[in-house]
């Protein structure tokens, strides 16, 4: 009948089209020039270096923009970039930078102190600009242009991070921005790809599809990067990115703990790719709101920590790809106090501590009460992430067994933040990402305990720690500062305002066609990477690298 004919016709046509397209499709990865690099990226919001907040934007801008002085990605030492040299006054309040001469912006303009001035104004002064980290600049007293190639910053107070803030700001081109101000600056088209001085320049950004960078042949450094083009492919789904990597469509791919330990072990996989893990600057924790009746008592917090089986957590949730931390730093930091042993998982000890603190099951309903008959029942805020949901679920079971009622309240990120800021929670779990320069002020100084937009989520108040923090902020000798921080670490561990959980690893998969690829927690230097032609790949190199 006619109806059936329409049906068959349609289906046949579709199948035919798909078959032809599949046959015609160009999916030969090997036909691509081998000096093109393909990376995956989650879409950044904006590439404007002053406004950007997400990791993706940093990844791209590391290749396009440059600061005056930057840290070496692997040794973390300061190295000259757009500034040839710099002076720091004896009182550590004045920083003078001598800029490199003859550096050209990608659009041909010359880099001068005017650009530094413009960057500073946008970062620190222009009120309508939503610059990242604006309030920290409040202590910067003055900025002056000495001459075309010299600039000077002056700070009101001693602050160990001040130099880094001045030195490491990504310099933006004043001319290319047309000296834009306020809202115009926020909306400037440079946000879609900024003119920079770096080794690569932006060619195009097709929203949701790809971003293409091209080698800057006028780069001021002698050694030019190897790759002629860098393509960032926007992939929103991690499992799709992994499959693309397996097909060779992207050269480097970050993966989850599960995929790293379970999905990437086949022989054919190991033959073609390298698995590479390196430490991060991050750690996770459970925070107990120290203001709440339950967690005011140090013994209760200790009991809680004794109930958290961190080694099991790492085994199940992180698939073994993490280590236990005992304090507010990542284990590779010099500030981390390695003398401290983590409190072990010990439910019996926890029960004793709870009994001591007065939380005893008084009416025989299986739930602990205090003297006034208040039931030990609290709410655990869970944000919308599988890891925190898993942690909460395990903890809930663990606490139920010792007679504590824990309720999960799962919230979407925006609402979660609202509760967090208002300190309207009993406990929750979060992660913290630090930099090379670790500090304690935001999370641990008592000035933040009352203040509802600070990061002192635990409402932690400790005079001794306050003193140590203030001391450390004005201490410029790194070794001395780290010693102070290690002492603070000890006290915080003793107080257990948090139950510190673990510090994970970053895991990337690398195609064996790339050589000289190195990562650190601060990122990588794509300029150093090389590739070999498709027919010369060394498949015998080891397929596992861990640092």
């Amino acid at each position, binding site marked *: 009948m006619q109806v059936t004919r329409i049906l068959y016709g349609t289906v046949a046509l579709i199948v035919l089209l798909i078959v032809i397209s599949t046959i015609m499709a160009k999916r030969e990865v090997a036909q691509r020039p081998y000096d093109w690099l393909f990376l995956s990226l989650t879409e950044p919001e904006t590439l404007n270096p002053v406004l950007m907040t997400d990791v993706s934007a940093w990844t791209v801008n590391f290749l396009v923009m440059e600061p005056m002085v930057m840290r070496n990605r692997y040794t973390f030492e300061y190295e000259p970039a757009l500034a040839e040299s710099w002076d720091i006054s004896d009182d550590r309040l004045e920083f003078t930078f001598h800029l490199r001469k003859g550096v050209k912006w990608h659009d041909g303009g010359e880099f001068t102190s005017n650009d530094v001035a413009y960057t500073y104004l946008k970062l620190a002064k222009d009120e309508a600009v939503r610059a990242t980290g604006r309030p920290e600049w409040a202590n910067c007293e003055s900025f002056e242009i000495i001459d075309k190639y010299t600039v000077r910053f002056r700070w009101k107070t001693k602050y160990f991070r001040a130099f880094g803030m001045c030195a490491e700001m990504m310099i933006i081109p004043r001319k290319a921005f047309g000296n834009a101000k306020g809202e115009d600056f926020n*909306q400037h088209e440079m946000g*879609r790809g900024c003119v920079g001085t770096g080794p690569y320049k932006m060619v195009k950004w097709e929203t949701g599809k790809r971003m293409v960078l091209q080698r800057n042949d006028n780069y001021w450094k002698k050694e030019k990067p190897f790759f002629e083009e860098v393509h960032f492919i926007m992939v929103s*789904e991690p499992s799709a990115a992994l499959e693309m990597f397996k097909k060779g469509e992207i050269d480097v791919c970050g993966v989850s703990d599960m995929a790293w330990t379970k999905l990437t072990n086949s022989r054919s996989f190991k033959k073609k790719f390298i698995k590479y893990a390196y430490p991060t600057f991050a750690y996770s924790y459970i925070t107990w709101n120290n203001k709440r009746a339950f967690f005011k008592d140090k013994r209760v917090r200790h009991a809680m920590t004794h109930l958290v089986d961190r080694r099991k957590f790492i085994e199940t949730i992180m698939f073994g790809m993490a280590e236990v931390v005992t304090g507010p730093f990542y284990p590779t930091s010099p500030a981390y106090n390695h003398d401290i042993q983590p409190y072990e998982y010990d439910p019996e000890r926890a029960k004793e501590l709870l009994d001591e603190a007065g939380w005893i099951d008084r009416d025989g309903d299986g739930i602990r009460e205090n003297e006034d008959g208040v039931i030990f029942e609290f709410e655990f805020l869970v944000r919308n992430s599988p890891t925190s949901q898993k942690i909460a679920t395990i903890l809930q079971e663990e606490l139920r067994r010792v007679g504590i009622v824990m309720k999960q309240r799962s919230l979407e990120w925006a609402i979660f933040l609202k509760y967090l800021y208002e300190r309207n929670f009993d406990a929750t779990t979060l992660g913290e990402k630090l930099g090379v320069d670790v500090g304690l002020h935001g999370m641990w100084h008592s000035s933040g305990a009352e203040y509802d937009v600070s990061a002192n989520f635990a409402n932690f108040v400790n005079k001794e720690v306050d003193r140590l923090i203030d001391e450390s902020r004005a201490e410029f000798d790194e070794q001395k500062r780290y010693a102070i921080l290690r002492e603070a670490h000890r006290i915080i561990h003793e107080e257990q305002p948090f139950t510190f959980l673990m510090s994970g690893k970053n895991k990337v998969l690398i195609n064996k066609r790339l050589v000289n690829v190195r990562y650190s927690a601060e990122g990588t230097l794509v300029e150093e990477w090389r590739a070999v032609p498709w027919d010369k790949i060394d498949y015998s190199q080891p397929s596992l690298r861990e640092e």
Partner: protein
Amino acid sequence: MRNYILKRLFLTIPTLLGITFITFVIIHIAPGEPQAIRGAEELRAGAQITRESIEKWRKLHDLDKPLNVQYWRWLKRLFPYHPEKVETEDHWLKRFRPDFGTSFKDGRSVTQKIRERVPVTLTLNIITIFLVYMIAVPLGIHSATRQGHLSDKVITFILFVLYSLPGFWIAHMLITYVSGGDYLNLFPLAGLQSATIDQMSWYEVFFDRVWHLALPVLVLTYPALARLSRYARVGMLEVVRQDYIRTARAKGLPEKVVIMKHALRNSMITIITVIGALLPALLGGSVIVEQIFSIPGLGRLGFEAVLNRDFPQIMATATVGAVLTLVGILISDLLYGLVDPRISYEAASPWRSFLGMCRKAYCEFKARPLHTTLTTVAGAALITLLCTYHLLPIGAVIATLLLEALLIPYLFSRYLKKSFIKIIIGGVAVPVAIGYLFYMLYNIEKPVMGMSPFTFAFVLLGVVFFLFIALFVFKGLSVNFNIVTRQFKRNRLAVASLFLIIFLIVIAVTAPLLANDRPIVMKYEGHIYFPTFRTHESIAALDFAKLKHDVGTDNWALWPPVRYGPSETDLDDFLQSPSKKHLLGTDDLGRDILSRIIHGSRVSLAVGFIAVGIYVVIGVVMGSLAGYYRGGTDILISRLIEIQICFPSFFLILTLIALLPPSIFNIMIVIGITGWPGIARLIRGEFLKQREHEYVAAAKALGTPNRTIIFSHVLPNAVAPVLVAATFGIAAAILVESALSYLGFGVPPPTASWGSILASSREYVSLAWWMVWPPGIAIFITIISYNFVGEALRDAIDPRLKT
């Protein structure tokens, strides 16, 4: 015709205003502020932020102003007149270019961002709609003309199977097995075009597009097939039994001509109704497809905007989505007239209808000033009350619910017997009762009547739902039940399915007796206890986990068949494959999967029942009133339908769920109050058709009251597509719940639901099959059963089939 189009275009203005205003209010009163998110990122970057900087920013974006001012400013920016900004040689129209503002997140022009994405979304959706119609309609007609044959059954079965497979799950399977690096490498993984598209000739570009679109379109198309072909089949079955078809056949016309020429056009009404609803459904449904296949479309843009509380972006996405949908609805209404010449466009001029409505409202007020005022004031007071208490986040939902609840009694009060008591009950008692129910659900902590709050609510809502249904089915429909039962019993597959559903309900109700970490009955140190039912003080401190293996001498215990609780974690036994200890294995936290599935049935069944119960009741009432009375009532209700339908449904659900505190009841209620327009439009379409029939005229001539005509005469004839829609709705609600779980907005953990188990297994597709298949099969069986029952019920209730 031209007048009709003009009228419709004119009527879109209030609809658009309504949509934008509701969206505006919802996003602003919902918790979570855009600057808090930005602040958090800065906090994490180690910066300190100050209260002043936040205030400054709020001021800059007018967020400190009252809502009405903000909305007015938004409107003003949308319809600007700025001659100074435009160069003289530009087209004059450019002076009126709408300005949606700039995104909070990245400072880009929102108009620009939307413009980038509209073509992508339209390509995807238009191709999908086209394919769905090209395949589903012939399939439906084919199986209608061969009703009861093997091919009908096979087609039905295959479509149901397809329908019951969650899209995100299939998409993950496709990525791994069809386009991945390990298995078949046939299709691309991300995006809609190749990198080298600039160097391709036109036909290469075409095929490159086809190649990239194949999988996303497939995932969007297959679930819609089942629904649409069902409608096509139902429509055709109705028509085939009409007298004129018999006449045509009697004349000796070939079957081909009868079907294609006489029956087809008339059978299309239902299908065309659906086209209007299909576009928003696809817009919403593509959130997940866009996410998985990395396609930059409107759905993901809107979803991310909601998560980031990017107000200008949300408003713009909602407006654009609404405009697209309104166009879809307009097209479907125009097609209506094309296929059914009996429907006239010039039903009533809007102005006169409006005047008439005002007059009627005024009469109403004059006749019973006390009642109308009381109803309105009471409703308003209740909303205010709820909003001022700590129920503010829920206030948004309740407000919507109440608006609808208030409207129903108002409309009823005109047509039902006008007694004081009914108005009081309708206008005050119902909203108060609903509000109170909400209040209780949110505040119950202690067990009620020996049941956990959840069970209690389950029972309560179930009772309410069945009362409603009973009211409609037994009283209003006046269907002869003996006949329905007899008809139904003939379909053995359906009877089996019904038993299966009853079996599932029994499992859901008795879940704690089937899977629990404590015994049902036990003797412990000389006493007998019932630990499952109540807490015994003397054994409160008992560690049941230890007793599992050894109760000790003199003691005995009767354990449930599955000795694990649904959230009992065991980190030593995580990701275990099925064994004697754990019949269906354990998940990534060492929880017994069988136990979770047994307990998950509670949530999954409840979601389907309650959500669909809510929206069928609302939809049937609204639709029949609109279709029967036409004129002013129709215009009013159609506006409401449009407002509601223009929010892409899944997207609206997602937004509301993201904004509300997570709870299973919010999911049910939100699905419930967003689902009714589909039903209402179906019923309205049927009523428009039915009211032209002679039996209605006859009933009118006999002096039968309107109420009786609507509910006793017309509704039984019009309800068939609703039953199909409702069974699909129950199935859809279960799928929606799983899709929400996939995006992280499902049942809050650790509560188990089938959807959440399936969603949490997506990482383990190739690693732990026992996490993937059991919940999938449970969902699949349930949905199939509902569909078979609905199908059989439809046949049984159809008055023309009575034998």
